[in-house]
């Protein structure tokens, strides 16, 4: 019941923040100095053509009228038309969603599976060389530009060692010989469901480097938070008491400390997810993946503002949604939060 009320309050708050975001994003994308009409026509547009397009598309209306029109359309699920591809932005986004979803989800899983054990081990072996190395790794994670890491990986594993493909989502020859039946739209899942092993192998191989590159920053973030929270927990009185009772070290560390140390990790996952969304612009374009980030990258280069707006809104919305989920999970697993007075 408490959870339900909390959820309702958060959903309401989310709607307000979303409205704020849509205003900020719209104003930003409409400050673009270049003429959208000229871009729409392409090549050498005459003034007459530009005026006509401006009239038709409403580019010459006051900005608040444009925003209201945009919001009216948005509520009907209409994100406008991409100035470059001349197709509805909604369709462009829908077509690219699954590639990004796959990439980000896998990266998040990797970040947790690598970061949590690394951070916990680092804390239980505090001030040893292993701890120092793991700290260095976690600081490196947040210090390395993701596109540069992508280049290094391509250089080492694709270009020199020939272990993994350089870029692309799947080998096109394999795809034509072993076509994938679309069920979920995910290139990693669909071949599995249909037993198409050749396509699955190729698809998985193409994901290894991008996932590693995208996950690396978050591995750093997760390791760091897991370590510091575990160190804090290990200093708690109840842990000392458990030790004093003569309980074995693994039992104390993994049964009593570990679970509590995981709580802050949950909150930092939301932030990691946000970093990854930003990272898709770089990783997807470096690895030539057909996702939203690559689309966003191309749209920015071409000043395609309805498309930029679409990606921005979709990313911001999913970021808020993920943070909402994170908060709800936190609320559900940590009873202390429910007891706090709510004056955040």
């Amino acid at each position: 019941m408490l959870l339900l009320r909390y959820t309702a309050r958060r959903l309401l708050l989310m709607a307000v923040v979303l409205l704020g975001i849509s205003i900020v994003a719209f104003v930003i994308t409409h400050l673009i100095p270049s003429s959208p009409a000229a871009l729409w026509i392409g090549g050498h547009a005459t003034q007459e053509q530009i005026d006509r397009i401006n009239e038709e598309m409403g580019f010459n209306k006051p900005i608040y009228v444009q925003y209201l029109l945009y919001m009216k359309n948005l509520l009907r699920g209409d994100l406008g038309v991409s100035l470059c591809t001349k197709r509805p932005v909604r369709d462009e986004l829908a077509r690219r969603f699954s590639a990004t979803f796959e990439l980000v989800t896998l990266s998040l899983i990797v970040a947790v599976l690598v970061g949590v054990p690394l951070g916990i081990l680092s804390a239980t072996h505090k001030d040893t060389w292993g701890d120092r190395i793991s700290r260095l790794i976690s600081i490196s994670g947040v210090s390395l530009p993701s596109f540069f890491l992508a280049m290094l990986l391509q250089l080492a594993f694709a270009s020199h060692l020939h272990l993994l493909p350089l870029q692309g989502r799947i080998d096109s020859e394999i795809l034509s010989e072993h076509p994938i039946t679309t069920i979920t739209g995910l290139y990693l899942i669909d071949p599995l469901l249909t037993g198409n092993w050749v396509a699955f192998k190729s698809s998985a191989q193409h994901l290894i480097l991008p996932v590693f590159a995208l996950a690396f920053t978050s591995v750093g973030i997760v390791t760091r938070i897991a370590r510091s929270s575990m160190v804090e927990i290990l200093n708690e009185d109840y842990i000392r008491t458990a030790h004093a009772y003569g309980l074995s070290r693994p039992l104390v560390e993994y049964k009593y400390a570990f679970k509590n140390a995981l709580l802050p990790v949950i909150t930092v996952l939301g932030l990691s997810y946000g970093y990854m969304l930003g990272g898709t612009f770089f990783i997807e374009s470096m690895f030539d993946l057909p996702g939203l980030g690559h689309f966003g990258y191309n749209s920015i280069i071409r000043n395609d503002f309805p498309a930029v707006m679409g990606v921005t809104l979709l990313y911001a919305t999913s970021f808020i949604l993920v943070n909402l989920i994170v908060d709800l999970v936190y609320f559900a697993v940590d009873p202390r939060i429910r007891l706090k007075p709510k004056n955040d």
Partner: protein
Amino acid sequence: MTALTARLNLRYTAYLLRRNPMFVLGLLIVLGLVLCAILAPVIAPYDPGKIDFRAKHLPPSVEHPFGTNIRGQDIFSQVVYGTRMSLLISVIVVALSLLMGVPTGLIAGYFGGRVDEVIMRMTDAFLAFPPMLLPIAIAAALERNLLNGLIAIAVSWFPWYTRILRATVLVTKEELYVESARSIGVRDTLIILRHVLPNSVSPLVIQASMDMGYAILFAAALSFIGLGAKPTDMEWGRMVTSARAEFLDFWWTATFPGLAIFVTVLGFNLIGDGLRDILDPKVRGR
């Protein structure tokens, strides 16, 4: 800076440095960079902009420690001169963020009430964006050059500063010395500048020292999507990006400028970590 100076007496400092080798490493890196920036004309063996097509794509050697790029420019000299641009980027972004973040944070924290409410809801809208997305969107909307890229980063960062400062101001303004200053009739502006601000800056100093590095990282990222430095700018991210078409055949073209970014950001991060240890005794030893 009373809280700061009190902690910075020599013996204590020496003790802290011994305990924190990573912080020393960070300091050495950043000091090295500053020296490199000042002495760039002395260190760099060539004019970084000089084009020599006969010398293109030379691998690293004694004459060209980092090799040469497609235009035959000496990459080592470019990286050395790049330190100037990078430090400038750090200073500009952090200064702009502080310029916007400090007043808003002070006002929100000190006066509270409706002003606080408005400022906080504004920061909510900014912070609801995924970290890299807002600078990209703002930079894309402005004319494409490095300064606008830096402004875009600062605009999307300052709400963090606002929040961090506000949180400490909320505590500091309840301190006894603030109370007594108020009771003898000192003006608000003076209280804020003389008492509240100096005793609230520690968390901001930590954040700013880390952000010096992240500024370089973000600026490089903007260059990568064509929203930052121009092709002629001696900026590391731009150098890596320019090498995008050729680095698979000539690995050194992207590797050295990229490593320069990495080492620099690492240095600032280590300093930030160490400062947290020194300025915030609560987390010491963690």
